């Protein structure tokens, strides 16, 4: 029953943020950052099992593991970028949040280049 814990934590954190925002906006931002990090840490353990199952399925299907690794990397990168961008946006810095998201997009594109190349090569090999 992790969800009860998470909901309770979120409510308590929201209350604390509301109390602090008037006097100390920076402390309120820290509280919301910590709440987000704790919630992510609580859930992230569950992800291990899911990733393991996906890896086993890929091995069973005989898919090249480097592709799966790239995919997982992109998912992790997207989670991290989302987290950072959301914290910045909460603190009123939409500009920095947009830059973080842009950087994440660039890095994801670079990570995806080998897969794009592989797709292109397989298409080219089909053409007589």
């Amino acid at each position, binding site marked *: 029953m992790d969800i009860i814990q998470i909901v309770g*934590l979120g409510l*308590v954190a929201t209350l604390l943020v509301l109390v602090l925002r008037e*006097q100390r906006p920076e402390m309120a931002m*820290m509280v919301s*950052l*910590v*709440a987000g990090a704790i919630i992510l840490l609580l859930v*992230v353990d569950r992800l291990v099992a899911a990733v393991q199952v996906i890896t086993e399925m890929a091995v069973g299907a005989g898919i090249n593991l480097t592709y799966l690794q790239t995919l997982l990397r992109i998912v992790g*990168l997207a989670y991290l970028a989302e987290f950072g961008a959301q914290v910045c946006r909460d603190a009123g810095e939409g500009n920095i949040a947009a830059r973080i998201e842009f950087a994440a997009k660039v890095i994801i594109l670079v990570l995806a280049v080998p897969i794009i190349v592989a797709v292109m090569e397989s298409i080219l090999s089909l053409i007589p």
Partner: protein
Amino acid sequence: MDLLFKIAGIGIFISVLNIVLKQAEKQEQAQMLTLVGVVLVLLMVLQLISELFTSIKTIFNLF
């Protein structure tokens, strides 16, 4: 969970001390107190964030 209450407590404590120092006409010290509080909380938050980053890094084997 502990950390959350710790940070909120530090925030309330510092704002109370800030009011007292402002009443006593000690603006610079109030400013310093605010700065020290922010640094203190930042150090605490940094550990949690690094823990989160390392766990995500190991799960998705990023870099």
